[in-house]
């Protein structure tokens, strides 16, 4: 049971991080290869605050998220103001994440350099992580389905037109980057309190790639798609443990197959919703009521 629990916690941690990438990549259309950097900042800040200063873990996770969010301005302001996009933005973010990793590897007081932090109190249990995950998914859903989300989609679809209509493109992009970095920071904090041990290398480029893969795999412009993709991509390596040697091969093949046959991702820009089902049930009930009445 502990094993399954562990996977569920890992899933919810990943979903929180992926929600951040959904906002930035799925809706604003900015590819980022450096979200692990924000997770790293969130994780270290949260862990240090709780371990050395005894601050309650939820509060320190929030502070970690905020600091990750602020740090995104360092890279976001110059790049987004200069209208950097596409591959260029992705590479700038990759450089940011790498420099964070190297920076943390070389700070010894509190950060403990490349040896990493150990003995972080274990705070993340299944209930807490699921609650945080649910709150974050709800938050993302409300944000992206509001006007704010619509403006982000318009920027992704046709930036020039959006700007000439009067949308402050730089400001909206920065807002989405700030929120995205905040969510990744929270995800990092959750990771710290679950693993209880981390080194700067925990937050390597691979982690960023996995999150980006989940969003592309699930569908750009969808929220439920990437969430489902995250669940699959987190569970898959565990399910494939039986065929350990072929694990990565199967993982890679699956990615290629999905991209070949559904280049828009699992769900494209659609959402899975219960609404059609509810509607159908209501309709059937109505029909049944009517037939009962007529039968009398």
């Amino acid at each position: 049971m502990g094993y399954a629990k562990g996977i569920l916690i890992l899933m919810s941690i990943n979903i929180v991080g992926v929600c951040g990438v959904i906002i930035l990549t799925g809706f604003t259309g900015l590819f980022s290869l450096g979200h692990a950097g924000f997770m790293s900042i969130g994780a270290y800040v949260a862990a240090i605050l709780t371990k050395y200063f005894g601050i309650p873990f939820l509060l320190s996770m929030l502070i970690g998220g905020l600091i990750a969010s602020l740090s995104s301005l360092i890279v976001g302001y110059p790049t987004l103001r200069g209208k950097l996009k596409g591959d260029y933005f992705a590479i700038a973010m990759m450089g940011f994440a790498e420099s964070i990793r190297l920076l943390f590897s070389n700070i010894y007081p509190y950060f403990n350099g490349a040896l990493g932090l150990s003995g972080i109190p274990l705070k993340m249990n299944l209930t807490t992580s699921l609650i945080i995950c649910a709150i974050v998914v709800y938050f993302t859903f409300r944000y992206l389905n509001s006007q704010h989300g619509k403006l982000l989609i318009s920027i992704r679809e046709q930036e020039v037109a959006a700007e000439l209509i009067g949308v402050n493109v730089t400001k909206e992009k920065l807002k989405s980057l700030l929120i995205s970095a905040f969510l990744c920071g929270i995800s990092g904090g959750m990771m710290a309190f679950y693993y209880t041990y981390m080194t700067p290398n925990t937050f390597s480029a691979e982690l960023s790639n996995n999150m980006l893969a989940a969003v592309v795999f699930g569908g750009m412009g969808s929220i439920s798609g990437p969430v489902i993709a995250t669940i699959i991509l987190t569970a898959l390596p565990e399910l494939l443990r039986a065929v350990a040697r072929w694990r990565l091969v199967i993982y890679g093949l699956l990615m290629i197959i999905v991209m070949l046959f559904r280049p828009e991702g699992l769900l494209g820009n659609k959402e899975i919703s219960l609404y059609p089902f509810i509607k159908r049930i209501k309709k059937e009930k109505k029909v049944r009521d009517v037939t009962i009445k007529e039968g009398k």
Partner: protein
Amino acid sequence: MSLLEIENLTVEFGGLKALSNVNLEVNEGDFLGLIGPNGAGKTTLFNAITGVVKPSDGDINFEGKNIKGMRPDKIALRGISRTFQNIRLFPKMKASENVEIGIIRVPQYSIHDAILGLPKQRNKDKENYEQALRHLEQVGILEYKDAYAGELPYGIQRRLEIARAIATNPKILFLDEPAAGMNNDETKDLINFLSKLHKDTGITIVLIEHHLDVVMELCKNIMVLNLGSTLAYGNPKEIQSNPDVIKAYIGERRQKTNV
């Protein structure tokens, strides 16, 4: 005072002068046509006014304020709206959402309003949606409200772009070749629609068009650009009989030479 005043506007791309010393005055309620051969600088003039390209010299005054060098979104918020020669819709958004973006522009409620789902958000969203439908009806494409913009037929896309531009409630509307690629019937529809729009709302319109019959029928005044500078300005009759314009459009009769 005129709505838009352009003085000695010059735009350079490297060594090429796309526009040199263009002067133009647009009054409120005008319907101005902008014609000229390809490469005359018509679209560049639009781009300079809407802030896409930075003019190297000259002034652009809109409602008495110099808007030269301002950011495009700031200029748009002042009440200048435009459409594009090559359609620029938001293809993966529904037709109604495309128009909604034109209405929203700057978020009308904060992020925490959105997250908490306060009535303020729901009312605003509903209001915008209804207004978007009104604009779609105005241009006569209400039946396409739920279709994705990228999947619409070409003529409808053109109209949708106009609907989106009108939705920003502009003081002046720049239309860049709205009849491009349209057949005769569609063009006639467009002429009727634009003259009705101008009559109903009194909005100031500046129109670039290669279909001269459209320009001649709609516009009160016409400006002819050639090679980046003003060739002629006047009402349609004057333009049609202007020898310079005929020369630029059709060419000169070749002189008989003795060989």
